[in-house]
């Protein structure tokens, strides 16, 4: 069923009784051409583009829980392409271009809102650094605006401009950045993939990737063995756990990142605002809640919940730029497991095992990459060739020295 104004009117006359489920609950087949492990944003997007762009049909997405239950449903919904490193910009810009046409493409309301992303700077040297980043973006054809203090004041007048420790001097604005409704992105891709014949197998946990003579032959799951000629691994925080069943050792560590949402208030924050004195980002959802987050809890963890030092740190950063929200009550905070790569940039590549493809290392920047990652990963799986926009995101870059270290902190994942 195509969603449109006519389907809405039609349903209105039928008391909304005729809506069909957006995707099926199929039984697993004995064998598929392609299995995608992980029913998150990236896995579903990959299946969607495999079906839509490459005309492949015999595909399954296996998910151990329910689709969209991991990081795609736990993030702070920010979409942007304000990167600096050569390998990253073309990829993230391609992803942002896909975002811009996504809702029409998969016929689902993902509430994509290009309200702008504003990175505040607090010192002269940080201004120079942001100017450099803006220049790097513009050299790749991505528009960036360097605002002075008055420019920021016109946009977000309620910030603490005279903060003693971190006075706000200005900001770098990417107007095309913004936010999207994260769950709807997963659901939209799932519906689009399902309607093209992709089987979405929820509550199907991969216990082992089976490899014979250097080739993948399928996966052992809690619902039995499912054969597959090609396997795409998009398991985010659990990547290394699944990969090690195929004997793969990866430059990945898993950490917890927390996110927060407050009670709904009237429209206040018109764009995404990030704090340059630390690491903090905040936006306001269409429902009115303030959605924000900061850095990782500093040590490896698979516990999808946050700890109090992280909460305290985040709130302190919020107060450094927005003391006005100090009396707003927190509704929820939660944690998600991040697959932190050793240089802070992702990996979309083949492995030494024939038929096993890897999509991981998204650190805590995976949401904005969802369509781009799906597009490039689908291209890799379908054609066995790396997509030009993802050619720097190689697994062997750690061995060859071509790392993409956006933050310049080295092989120390908790600092990225």
């Amino acid at each position, binding site marked *: 069923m195509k969603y449109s104004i006519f389907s809405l009117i039609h349903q209105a006359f039928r008391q909304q009784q005729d809506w069909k489920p957006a995707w099926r609950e199929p039984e697993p087949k004995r064998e598929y051409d392609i299995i995608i492990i992980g029913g998150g944003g990236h896995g579903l997007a990959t299946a969607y583009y495999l079906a839509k762009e490459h005309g492949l049909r015999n595909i399954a997405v296996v998910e151990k829980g329910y689709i969209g239950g991991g990081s795609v449903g736990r993030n702070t919904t920010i979409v942007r392409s304000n990167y600096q490193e050569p390998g990253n910009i073309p990829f993230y810009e391609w992803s942002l271009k896909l975002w811009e046409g996504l809702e029409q493409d998969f016929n689902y309301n993902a509430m994509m809102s290009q309200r702008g992303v504003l990175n505040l700077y607090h010192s002269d040297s940080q201004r120079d650094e942001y100017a450099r980043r803006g220049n790097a973006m513009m050299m790749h054809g991505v528009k960036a605006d360097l605002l002075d203090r008055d420019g920021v004041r016109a946009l977000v007048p309620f910030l603490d401009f005279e903060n003693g420790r971190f006075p706000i001097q200005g900001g770098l604005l990417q107007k095309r950045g913004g936010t999207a409704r994260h769950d709807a992105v997963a659901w939209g891709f799932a519906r689009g993939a399902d309607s093209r014949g992709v089987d979405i197998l929820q509550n199907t946990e991969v216990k082992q990737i089976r490899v014979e003579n250097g080739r993948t032959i399928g996966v052992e799951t809690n619902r039995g063995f499912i054969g597959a000629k090609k396997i795409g691994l998009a398991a985010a925080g*659990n990547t290394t756990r699944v990969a090690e069943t195929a004997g793969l050792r990866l430059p990945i560590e898993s950490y917890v990142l927390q996110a927060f949402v407050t009670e709904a208030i009237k429209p206040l924050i018109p764009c995404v605002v990030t704090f340059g004195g630390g690491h903090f980002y905040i936006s306001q959802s269409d429902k009115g809640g303030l959605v924000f987050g900061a850095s990782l809890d500093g040590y490896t*963890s698979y516990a999808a919940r946050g700890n109090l030092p992280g909460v305290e740190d985040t709130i302190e950063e919020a107060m450094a730029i927005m003391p006005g929200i100090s009396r707003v009550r927190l509704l929820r905070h939660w944690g998600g497991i991040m697959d932190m790569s050793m240089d802070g940039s992702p990996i979309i590549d083949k492995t030494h095992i024939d038929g096993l493809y890897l999509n991981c290392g998204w650190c805590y920047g995976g949401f904005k990459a969802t369509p781009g990652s799906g597009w490039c990963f689908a291209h890799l799986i379908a054609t066995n060739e790396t997509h030009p926009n993802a050619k720097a995101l190689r697994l062997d870059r*750690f061995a060859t020295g071509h790392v993409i270290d956006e933050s310049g902190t080295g092989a120390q994942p908790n600092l990225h």
Partner: protein
Amino acid sequence: MRIKCPYCGERDSQEFSFLGQADLVRPDPDGTDAQQAFHDYVHIRPNPAGVNRELWLHAHGCRSWIIVERNTLTHAISSVEYASPRFREKAQ
């Protein structure tokens, strides 16, 4: 989370800073497979879901390097000892 420092006793985890995987051994730079060995040493991690051995520094305390055995699923700490064998012997 609290960590029981062998010198200072039980302290809040915020006094400590996390370096990462313990027991990584710097490879021999003159070895035949040195390039691969250094790649693994710098970049490849076991990342277990369960008990792991980690290096922590009691940065806002006695400044000892310690090895913490911690479960990454529950954050429960099963043992803490000095990283340096010399200090480990002294403590016994």
